[in-house]
């Protein structure tokens, strides 16, 4: 399997060349590209809703414990234990993935409707679909890949600010579990 970042770059470069050849001034082409973009987003949401449906159907209530490092720039200093179920974790993953798609759409709407760029529509019809298919959660529930190796929960997240990794070893969990971190009233 090729590194997704590398293949993304290749697709982007190829598509940029392709989109140079396309006449976006032509109204039928424009309509086609817009339809393609909408269709690709419909596909993505269909994929996520199907994943969510699968998760709810499987209803896997296996306990999942992991120690989350403090969020970068949040002022927190202590890492926190999360006690959850596979189902709840997976649903959370779908929600955050969908949030990402909405952000992409908002960005695109601004670029296309306000700034009048049409080129990115083409690339943005392909890349998000690719990354949606590559999502761990989709790989597990739609393509039936076993949740092991790279797909073992909790999923590894590449972090930008050098935040610590999610820990799953027994010692870390045992230490964080009875830390008395609950019941903090936020106001």
């Amino acid at each position, binding site marked *: 399997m090729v590194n997704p970042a590398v293949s993304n770059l290749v697709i982007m470069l190829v598509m940029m060349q392709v989109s140079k050849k396309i006449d976006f001034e032509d109204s039928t082409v424009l309509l086609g590209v817009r339809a393609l973009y909408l269709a690709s987003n419909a596909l993505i949401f269909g994929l996520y809703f199907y994943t969510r449906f699968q998760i709810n159907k499987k209803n896997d*209530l296996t*306990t999942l*414990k992991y120690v989350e490092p403090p969020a970068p720039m949040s002022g927190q200093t202590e890492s926190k234990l*999360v*006690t*959850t*179920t596979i*189902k*709840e974790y997976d649903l*959370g993953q779908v*929600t*955050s993935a*969908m*949030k990402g798609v*909405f952000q992409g759409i908002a960005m695109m709407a601004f670029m296309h409707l306000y700034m009048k760029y049409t080129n990115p529509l083409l690339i943005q019809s392909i890349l998000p679909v690719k990354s949606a298919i590559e999502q761990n959660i989709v790989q597990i529930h739609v393509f039936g890949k076993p949740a092991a190796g790279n797909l073992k929960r909790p999923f590894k997240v590449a972090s930008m600010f050098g935040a610590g990794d999610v820990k799953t070893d027994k010692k870390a969990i045992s230490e964080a*579990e*009875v*830390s*008395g*971190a*609950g*019941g*903090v*009233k936020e106001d």
Partner: protein
Amino acid sequence: MGPLQRARVYDWSKEFLIVLSIMGYVVLHFLGLRVNQGKVSSWIKAHLDVLQTQFYQVGPKPNITSTKSIDYIVTDGATAYNTYATGRVNVSHVLAKFRLLGRQNFITLSMEYFTSIFLQGFNPRDQIDVVITPSDPAAIDPFVFAVVNKENMSRSRDQNYFLSITRTVDSDKLPPSFTFMTESAEVTDTVVELAKEFFQALETPGVEKVLEYFAITDQQPTAPLSLKDLEPKTKLYLSLKFPSNKEQSELSARILNSAINLVDILVAKKTWRPEVAKKIKATRDAEIKKVQKALDLIKAEELAQKKTEALREKKAALAKLSPEEQKKLDQKSKEKEQRKLRSKQIRR
């Protein structure tokens, strides 16, 4: 044109629309309010038998003979309702708090729903919290034990301080949708042995639709801020969901009944083995240390602030003096310092 003629010619369609939407809003408001009140009323109806056989007084006043459930409720706004029961051996009182979705305002309701899609962990829902307070909260040995619905267990742990000092342990003594949160294996075994009635009710199918968690705890739900917050006072917390059919209502009443009966059993319970008691105490001592540390830090900060303020005041007073006096004071302090230095040198 007279005013009447003008009114006849004027295009009233906008005003008509406005009045219609206001009326629609008002109607929806009352519908939503009715839904909330109906939910609480039917809960009271389903649990009134249990409460009335267990307690002398049910509702805010003694001797309510009414059959209307609204008379047993204290309304605290469209989303907050309470009921209360007292007058029983071993139990001081039971307080049931109902916190419902803001159905009376469909605009905020739909906004809440919309944000809940995007904001993970923000998931507004109806909540019933029943707190059973024993007459002598110190009569029961301190410990924390809970049976928690796995569906929302991360939130339960986040919102309740007492759950966050326990360990989560799955067990085949429970239905697969529930888990134990307990301080030690022996605590679990003892409570399972004692709370037979509760665990029997837990075997009923569909229990995960009724029970969020049941906890026996000497610690409070909110994070402790003072040492007083950490004093052991055993209470029983029952977090329930609104039942959606008759079987669920009956099950919910059964669970409530078993929780109230458990107080008698807990009061009569033998004390823990020394090893278990020691472990439980160690957890609390560690928490006391943490709170003490935080308190000390606050105190030190206050002291530092006072010091800087005093210094600032002194400077301000100095600035008010005439130049000659300032000079005098300056010289005095200089002499003082020099004397200090000299004495140090001599000592060497």
